[in-house]
C-alpha cells in the first residue's frame, strides 16, 4: 500500500467537497474491493474520503411500496433485516449470499453498486427490480445507471446516498458461483411486478450486468419455469475465461432463470 491522505467527513456534503478538492481521491465505503486493491499496490489514490462516519447514510425502511436502503448499509444488515425479509425476501437472500461473513459485515450496498463489478450480486437486483439510485445530486433509474464493466452513470463528485427498491409481487435470485472466488459465474435475478417481468443477469456479460430479453419475453407470456424450456440465450457478448466459456455461461442463464422462477413461485 502506498501512502495516502485520510478524511472522515461527517456529512455527504462534506464528503462531496473533499472529493472535489482531492484529485485522485477515492470514496471509501466498506472497502472490500478498494482496500485489497490498494494493498496489492494496484490502486494508489491520493486520498481516501471515508463515508463510514457520515451521518444518515445507512438504515433500512419501508416507504409505501418501496424498500429504501441507505448506501452505507452493510450486506449483513440487509440479509437479516426483518423489513427486507418480509417485503423483499429475495433481496435479503441475495445479500446473505455475498462473499463471506467478514465481507458481509463490512461491505455496503452503495459501494457494491458504485463499483459495478461485473460479477457482483447487487447490480442484478437493482436492475431486475427497477430500483432508483439516489445520489447527492439526483435520482437515477437502474436502467440508466449501469454502463458497462466497472462503469456507472455517476459523475465526478457524485455519491450514492440511498437505493429505493419497488416491492415486486414475485422475485428470486439464483447464483451459480465461480468455484474459486464464489463470485457469480452466472447470477440471475427475476422479478415480476404486475405484468412487468424483468430478468437481470450478472457475472456473464463482458459488459457487466444486463437484462435478458429472451428470458423476459418467455416469462412475460406466463411466469413459470416451463416457459423457459427451449429458450436459448446468445453467447455473443458473454465472458469467456478459464472457469467458463461464453457458451457455458449462455447455457446457464436460462437454467438459473428457471431455478429462480421456481424459487419465486415457491414463496
Amino acid at each position: 500500500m502506498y501512502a495516502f491522505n485520510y478524511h472522515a467527513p461527517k456529512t455527504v456534503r462534506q464528503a462531496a467537497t473533499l472529493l472535489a478538492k482531492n484529485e485522485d481521491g477515492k470514496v471509501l465505503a466498506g472497502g472490500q474491493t478498494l482496500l485489497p486493491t490498494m494493498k496489492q499496490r494496484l490502486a494508489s489514490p491520493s486520498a481516501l474520503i471515508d463515508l463510514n462516519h457520515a451521518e444518515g447514510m445507512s438504515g433500512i425502511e419501508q416507504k409505501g411500496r418501496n424498500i429504501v436502503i441507505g448506501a452505507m448499509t452493510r450486506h449483513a444488515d440487509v440479509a437479516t433485516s426483518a423489513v427486507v425479509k418480509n417485503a423483499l425476501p429475495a433481496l435479503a437472500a441475495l445479500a446473505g449470499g455475498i462473499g463471506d461473513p467478514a465481507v458481509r459485515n463490512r461491505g455496503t450496498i452503495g459501494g457494491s453498486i458504485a463499483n459495478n463489478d461485473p460479477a457482483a450480486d447487487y447490480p442484478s437486483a437493482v436492475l431486475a427490480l427497477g430500483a432508483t439510485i439516489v445520489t447527492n445530486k439526483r435520482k437515477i433509474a437502474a436502467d440508466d445507471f449501469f454502463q458497462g464493466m466497472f462503469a456507472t452513470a455517476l459523475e465526478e463528485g457524485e455519491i450514492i446516498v440511498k437505493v429505493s427498491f419497488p416491492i415486486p409481487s414475485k422475485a428470486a435470485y439464483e447464483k451459480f458461483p465461480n468455484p474459486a472466488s464464489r463470485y457469480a459465474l452466472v447470477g440471475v435475478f427475476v422479478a415480476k411486478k404486475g405484468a412487468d417481468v424483468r430478468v437481470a443477469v450478472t457475472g456473464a456479460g463482458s459488459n457487466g450486468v444486463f437484462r435478458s430479453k429472451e428470458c423476459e419475453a418467455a416469462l412475460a407470456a406466463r411466469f413459470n419455469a416451463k416457459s423457459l424450456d427451449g429458450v436459448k440465450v446468445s453467447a455473443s457478448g458473454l465472458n469467456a475465461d478459464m472457469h467458463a466459456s461464453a457458451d457455458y455461461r449462455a447455457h446457464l442463464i436460462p437454467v438459473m432463470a428457471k431455478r429462480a422462477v421456481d424459487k419465486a413461485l415457491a414463496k
Partner: protein
Amino acid sequence: MSAKTGVGAPVLRKEDFRFITGKGQYTDDINRQDQAHAYFLRSPHAHATIKKLDISAAKSAPGVLGVLTGDDLAADKIGGLICGWMIHNKDGSPMKAGAHPALAQGKVRYVGDHVAVVIADTYAQAKDAAEKIVVDYQVLPAVVDMNKAKSSAAIHDVAPDNVVYDWHLGDKAATDAAFSKAKHVTKIDLVNNRLIPNAMEPRAAIGDFDAGTGVYTLYTTSQNPHVARLVLSAFVGIAPEHKLRVIAPDVGGGFGSKIFIYAEETVCVWASKKVGRPVKWTADRTEAFLSDAHGRDHISHAELALDDKGKILGLRVQTKANLGAYLSTFSSCVPTYLYAPLLSGQYDIPAIYVEVEGIYTTTAPVDAYRGAGRPEATFLVERIIEKAARETGTDPATFRRKNFIKSFPHQTPVIMAYDTGNYTASLDLALEMADYKNFAKRKKDSAKNGKLRGIGFSAYIEACGIAPSAAVGSLGAGVGLWESAEIRVNPVGTVEVLTGSHSHGQGHETTFAQLVADRLGIDIDSVAVVHGDTDKVQFGMGTYGSRSGAVGMSAIVKAVDKVIAKGKKVAAYALEAAEKDIQFKDGRFSVAGTDKSLAFGEVALQAYIAHKFNGQDLEPGLKEGAFYDPTNFTFPSGVHICEVEIDPDTGTTDIVKWTAVDDFGNVINPMIVEGQVHGGIAQGVGQALLEGAHYNADGQLVTASYMDYTMPRADDLPSFDIGMTNTPCTTNPLGIKGCGEAGAIAAPPAVINAITDAVGHEDVPMPATPYAVWQACQKGARKLAAE
C-alpha cells in the same frame, strides 16, 4: 500405564491447546533484536535474459541496508541450490541439471524467479526501494507446453532440448512379449494436473549472524531442518555445519513444499552477515503461489494387456513429467523412483515397462507434494483398471479381485517387494460399507430426478517409510533415509524424546509421547518431544513420505529398548539381584520370583546418583540414542469408493458418499490417523474436482490467487465413512505402515472413475469443474443421441 493414553488410544493432541489459543510459535512470530526485512524483486517474465540490472537508485532509497544480486552471490562464492537425487538416462549418462542460483545470474526462467533482494529497516521500505530497481529484460519465448518443449527455446544451456532426463524402468522385451499374447489391450491418455501446495502458513525465514561467535542461525519453515543445514553447509557453502544452526519452530503445514531448500532462506542467512543485522522474510500469498514448489503435472499414455479371461499380462507407460524451470531439492526422484515402482498397484502384473521424460519448462519448480509420485501412479493404474473392466464388461470390483496379488511377500517387476497385504479384505469391507449391491437402485432414483449417478473405485497402494539407505543410494539418492532418536531420562524419571522427525501438523508431540509412555509405563505428561533444532537434536532426516511413524518411531523404540536394558543393569545393582533376573513390566523393574521392585523413576534416580554401583562397572546416567535404517519400504493400501451425483444442467458434481477402507498396519492414535485420512481425501478431492494450476501461453500464472485457484472448502466435501483393516508391516518393529498421504493418493481416481461412470465415457479431465463436467455431459448426450 493408562489404557486411555496407551498405544491405540485416541488421545487428544497435546499440541492443540497451544495452537488453538494462539500460543504457537511460528517463524513469523519470531523477531530478533535489530531485525531488518527482505523483499525479493521477482521476474515478471517467464523467460528472459537480463541485459542490465541497475540497483543504484534502490541502494540510496530510505531505510535501505543493502541491495544484493546474483553477482554478489558469485563474488562470495555462494553456490547454487541443489537437486539431491541423480537420475541416469536410458543410455547411462547423467541427467542434465542446469545451475540454480539463489538470485538470477543473467537470466530469469519463470514468473516469480528471484532477480534481486532489497534489505531495509522495514518491509515497506524494502518494497518501495525495489520499485526503483531498473531491469532491462530481453524477453525470450516462454516454454509452457511439455509436448512442444523439445522444439522450444532452451531454458538451460546444458539441456538444449529442455529434456532433463529420458529414463526407464522395467523389462521392455518381457512387456512387449506380454502384449503380443494379449487378447485385449486397454489404452488411456491422462493428464495429472499441476497443483499448488497452499500450506496455511506461508514460507518464512530469518537469518541471524552472530559476529561474536561466527555462528549463523536460520529460523525457517522446514520439514527437515538438518537436511537444510547439510545442504546450506556442504553444497551452498554458507558456513560449516558447526557454525550454522537451523531452527524450524512450529510449522503450519507443508505437504512436501517445506522439504526443499529455497532461494529465500539461503539469501536471508547469507545476507544477515552482509548487512550485519538479522534479516527476515515472510512470503505473501501471491509469492507462495508463484514460488513454492508445485506438485504433479504429468502427461501419460498407458496400455494394459489382458488375456481372454481378463487377467492382466502387462502394462506399459510413457510419461512426460514437468519439472519446472529448475530442479528443486528432490524433484528428479518424484516422477521416477517414487512413481514408476508403484505402477504395479495392488495387482499381479507379470511385466511392466515405464518410460519417463523429465521436462524443463518456464514455470515454477515442481517437486514432492503430498504423495509425491505415488498419487500419479495410482491415478494411472486405477483409471486404466477401471477402463479395462468397463471395456471387458466386467464389474470393476470383480475385475480388481481377479487381478489382486494374493500371496506375500510379492516381488513386482518394478523394484518393489511387498512384504504383506490383504487387498481382498479391504475390498470386501468397502463394498459392504458402500452398500454397493444397491447402487443400481440408487442410480435409477437419481435418474428419476434428472441426475446422473456414478460410482468409482480406487484400490491404491503406496510406498511409505522411506527408506532403506543403501537401496536409495544405489538408485541415486544423495542422502541416507534412516531416522535418529534420543531418549533422555531425567533423574526424576521424566523423559525427553529427541527426534529427527519434524511435525508440521501430524501430531508427533502426542503420538511419540503415547508410544514412549506406553513402553516405559509412565504418564504421558511425563514425556516431552523435542524436534526442529539442529543444536538440540543431533541429526535427522525429517518428515515426509509418511515416514515418521514407520521410521521415526522405530528409531524411538530402538532407543527406548536401550534405555530399558540400561535400566535393568541399574536395577540389578539397586535391587541386589542378577541382571538376568530383572524384568521390566508396566513401568516397574522387578526381580523375578520376588516382590522386590523399583518404579521406572526410582531406577532413573539410582542411575544418576550412582550410589549403588561402581562407575567403573556401569556408567552413571540414563540416556540412549539410536539410528534406525529400514530394511524395506512399507506398503499401506486400501480401497476407497466414491459415489457422485451430477446435475447435467450445470455440470455440478456432488459427492454423495465416500467410503475409505485403509490398511495402515498397527495404529498408535486412531483419531490422529483418521484426521490424516480426512485431510488427505480433502486434498485428493481438491485435485480431482477443484484445484489446477494454470499458466497461459506467455508463462504467466493465471491461478495466482484464491480468486482463480480453487482450494477445497468444507462444503465441497462429504462426510467420510472410514473403515480399517490391519495387516501389520513385517519389516519394522512396530508393524506400522504410514497414513499421511493415503487419502491424497486414493481419492483422485475414485472421483474420476465415479464421474466417468456417471457420464458414460472416459473423457473427463482434472479438475472436473462444473464447466468440465458440463462439457463431458454434452459429449455424452451427443454420444447417446448417435446410438
